């Protein structure tokens, strides 16, 4: 699953550590999320959406196009 976490964080000039603190996770987890190698749980995805003030679907994109 792809996401815009890195772009959204850069737009706000936040560090990974700052975002990690806002989400209640470790910096390593934020890094894994940004590189798209770890897909968050639904509760964490909702937290991410709340922190950035955007709907989940505008942050996360499915790699496969809908049938």
């Amino acid at each position, binding site marked *: 699953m792809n996401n815009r976490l890195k772009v959204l964080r850069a737009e706000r000039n936040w560090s990974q550590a700052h975002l*990690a*603190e*806002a*989400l*209640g*996770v*470790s910096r*390593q*987890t934020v*890094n*894994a*999320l940004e*590189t798209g*190698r*770890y897909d*968050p*749980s639904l509760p*964490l995805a909702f937290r991410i959406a709340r922190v950035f003030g955007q709907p989940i679907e505008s942050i996360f994109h499915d790699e496969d196009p809908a049938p």
Partner: protein
Amino acid sequence: MFACMARGLKRVALYTLLGFLAFFALMVATGFFIGYQSARGVDVDADRLTFWLAAGVAVVCMTGAIAITVGWMRAIDEAAREAHKSAWFWGGCGGMAVAGVLFILASTPLAAALQPPSWFLGRTDPAAYMATGAAILALLMTAGYTLAWAWWWWRRR
């Protein structure tokens, strides 16, 4: 919220320290009690006493280890938990698979002639070899767990 996580881990570390201190105090108190009984002339069967002391120590240590693990798993975030779960499954299964090979080889007639050293040096009784088998399995699973855990984070660096 990350501060909450750090506080959770600090609480686990504090409880662990307190647990070790309580355990140490219990050992000292038990030692004093046994010494007192011995000085009073009470007949103390050393072997039986050692067995029950070891049983008590084992139960307290393992219960404490489980309690610490529960606290730890609750304090870390979901990715860290996922890393541990994945490591337990793949690393643990990998370690068991290696142990399975040793287990099958041990069933062959050629292995019957082997005199491998046991976990407790100098002892060759069945209990010592049972402990050796358990220790080998635990070591292999721990090694697999560590490798799988490191691999999980390496892939997501």
